[in-house]
């Protein structure tokens, strides 16, 4: 039997160009059966990336505020446009989801709440809680602007 190098799993830590110390890797997206916990896990990552991009928007906003009207006008104008509002609304939801998800992970880090039924309920609550919190904040924002 001829063994090809391709078929061999790389020995731990000896793979080409692998990071020096090996933290466990996540399974690839394609091999997952759909469950709320799996969806929440992927959403946690996606919102994390979105939040990182959000800090870039915050940096741009602060930079524009420091430069004056020539910079602030276009930035504030864009954020007030329909696309900008969608970005702001999405960013608020993304922060809410990731924050609640983070609390969920801090809890499961202690070894508790890992039973499938509880974990599934927590994942669903993560979505529900993030939507409720976002609507509350968006409502408060509209109320603040209207007053």
């Amino acid at each position, binding site marked *: 039997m001829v063994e090809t190098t391709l078929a061999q799993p790389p020995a731990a830590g000896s793979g080409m160009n692998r990071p020096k110390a090996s933290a466990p*890797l996540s399974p690839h997206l394609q091999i997952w059966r759909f469950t709320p916990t799996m969806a929440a896990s992927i959403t946690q990552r996606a919102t994390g990336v979105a939040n990182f991009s959000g800090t870039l928007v915050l*940096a741009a906003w602060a930079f524009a*505020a420091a430069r004056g009207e020539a910079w602030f006008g276009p930035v504030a104008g864009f954020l007030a446009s329909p696309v900008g509002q969608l970005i702001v609304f999405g960013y608020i939801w993304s*922060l809410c989801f990731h924050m609640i998800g983070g609390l969920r992970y801090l809890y499961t880090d202690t070894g508790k709440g890992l039973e499938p039924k509880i974990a599934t309920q927590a994942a669903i609550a993560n979505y529900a809680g993030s939507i409720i919190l976002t609507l509350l*904040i968006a409502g408060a924002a509209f109320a603040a602007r209207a007053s």
Partner: protein
Amino acid sequence: MAKRPTSTFAAQRASAVLLIPLALWFLWSIAAHAGDDLAGAQAWLGHLHNKLLFGAFVAVGAFHGRIGLHEIIEDYIHGPLNATLNALAIAAAAAITLLTWASLFQI
């Protein structure tokens, strides 16, 4: 061998805990200041405590985000591109933090 993942895990969790009050403050602020004009934004960021909280939210957020990006890169990108993307993520986090802090203290 296991030191890097462990300290990364600890840094990720510690920054996550720090971000909870900072994010709550930020979400509360966004509700009040999302539609600010320049004068409103400058008046708000003119207060030292707002500068510090805003700056801390961005700095700790960028630091925490950098760890997460590293995790994703490690999971999906193997090969020489891995180190390049990690370096880019570090540079982006540093640039975002520096730009924010430099701007805040010009207001």
